[in-house]
């Protein structure tokens, strides 16, 4: 569809949100509690905190939950019954106020979950999720979306993108059919859009390295992965907060007579991730696991899936307990933006 621009006045925003909630949709939005900003399921507009730079965790759990039930089973020695999950019960969901980096992350996840065969759990959740993005007014030293081909006003992945313009009103760019469907529910709140230079209202974040330079310089053998990863604790926090990290384990919860099989978040940072039964481990040392993290996102995923596995949100660096800063490392490898 052709994108269309509308104006949403500041005073209409609460009605906009609450109409959607009352209409029966689950609505996740950024909230602030004790200085901690996270996406939460909200009921009232007053719970929402839009004046944020970044949440600690990403929005990936909405389409890729930390634990996804794959099926349930009951079994005895000679009978096994597998009970499917009814994907129709997955609710219509709206993510409200996600920054462009988060909105763009679904494309990366989608590439992983559809490249060979379709993961219906992910696809159903993604299809039932509408993203109402919010351009960034501010950034911090950890942000680097402009270095990974995105920008603070990017519409990539947003069904509707809101940008705060003059008088704290919002420019609404309705990008997709899903966005239009939401727009139609609250059409009366919108007005014709004024002529406006959106870029004047989003934060200016300089590009700090070039993706092609980075990819050209990435090398399995040739780089000093040791130095970059020496203080890494293998805790996996980086993957936990990352909007695009999608590696998982498959485990059973229950016993041999009753229980469920689940898909559960996992990460290449953990030594058990690749440990063979024999005790051999192809990625025994932390520098080998750090190399996997960087190479996977910036070399293997572009090669195999035609997407970069990073949206420049900076969460991994903010959350790292030993202050490993991925941006510094990427600048170092690529030689920076000359």
């Amino acid at each position: 569809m052709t994108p269309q621009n509308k104006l949403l006045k500041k005073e209409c925003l609460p009605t906009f949100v609450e109409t959607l909630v009352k209409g029966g949709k689950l609505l996740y939005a950024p909230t602030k509690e004790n200085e901690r900003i996270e996406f939460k399921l909200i009921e009232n507009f007053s719970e929402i905190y839009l004046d944020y730079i970044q949440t600690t965790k990403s929005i990936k759990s909405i389409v890729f939950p930390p634990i996804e039930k794959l099926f349930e089973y009951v079994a005895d020695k000679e009978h096994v019954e597998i009970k499917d999950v009814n994907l129709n019960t997955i609710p219509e969901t709206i993510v409200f106020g996600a920054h462009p980096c988060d909105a763009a992350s679904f494309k990366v996840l989608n590439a992983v979950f559809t490249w060979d065969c379709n993961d219906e759990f992910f696809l159903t959740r993604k299809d039932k999720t509408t993203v109402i993005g919010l351009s960034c007014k501010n950034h911090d030293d950890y942000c680097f979306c402009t270095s990974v081909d995105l920008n603070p006003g990017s519409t990539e992945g947003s069904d509707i993108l809101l940008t705060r313009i003059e008088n704290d009103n919002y420019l609404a760019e309705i990008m997709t059919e899903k966005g239009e469907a939401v727009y139609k529910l609250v059409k009366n709140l919108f007005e014709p859009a004024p002529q406006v230079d959106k870029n004047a209202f989003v934060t200016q974040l300089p590009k700090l390295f070039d993706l092609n330079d980075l990819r050209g310089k990435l090398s399995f053998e040739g780089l000093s992965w040791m130095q970059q990863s020496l203080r890494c604790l293998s805790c996996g926090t980086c993957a936990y907060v990352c909007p695009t990290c999608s590696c998982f384990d498959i485990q059973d919860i229950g016993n041999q007579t009753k229980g469920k099989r689940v898909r559960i978040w996992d990460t290449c940072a953990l030594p058990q991730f690749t440990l063979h039964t024999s005790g051999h481990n192809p990625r025994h040392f932390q520098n080998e696991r750090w190399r996997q993290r960087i190479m996977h996102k910036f070399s293997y995923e572009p090669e195999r899936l035609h997407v970069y596995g990073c949206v420049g949100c900076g969460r991994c660096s903010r959350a790292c307990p030993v202050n490993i800063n991925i941006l510094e490392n990427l600048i170092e490898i690529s030689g920076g933006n000359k």
Partner: protein
Amino acid sequence: MRNDNIYKPCLMRIEKVTDEAPDVKTFRLKFIDDVQARNFDFKAGQFGEYSVMGEGESTFCIASPPTRKGYIECTFRKTGRVTSALANKEEGEIIGFRGPYGNRFPIEEWKGKNLLFVAGGIALPPMRCVIWNCLDLREDYKDITIVYGAKTVDDLIYKNELEEWNERPDVTLVTTVDPGGETPAWKGQIGFVPTILEKMELKAENTIAVVCGPPIMIKFTFPVLVKAEFKEADIFTTLENRMKCGFGKCGRCNVGSVYVCKDGPVFTYAQLKKLPAEY
């Protein structure tokens, strides 16, 4: 097979359990669902995810050949949680199976060639599949030589089949056990697989070599074959990285940008040489 839920296993009944060696068993499995049984097809070299409900899934190759219809077999050593639970299963009980996954041995391209199979220990199962596949199509291939070694006489698996291959006039079988692993009655060779292979008169011309074994055996076997002037593209092996999903999503079996579950598990030595040492 493909269904809406790519993680949902087919249910299979254990038709037969064979004790192969200490802690090593072979299961013969049949699909419970007729439609799944009819639609199932696989090629030599492919693998599956075998599961016990409540314990989890484990990755093994399919050890029986696609030429034997109506069942599949898997051979595993009781080692971890899932294989221990599997080992406790008896005939008549039900386990889960997802597959087949991965690529295959290109045996059609080997027509008219000699075949040299080199296996060590618990790595014979993937090779057993391709050996029987080729033996069932015996006229398509010239000389077939099998070299198989294990730590001890006890650890040799498929003992009945080794005997059968030994008696066949159209198969040359060489078995060996590691020094110290022999018994007084042992009639085979004594020595590590690469050492035994080195003593044999190998002819590389018009010959395909298939090597499956522990990493240390593979490491010392490739140079023996290269010295005997085998072409790197004519030496095949299978990689065995840890896997969970089997279809390129769970993210752990990759060697560089190559996914063992999708691009493998079968690779030629020529392909392996281009990969980083991440297996």
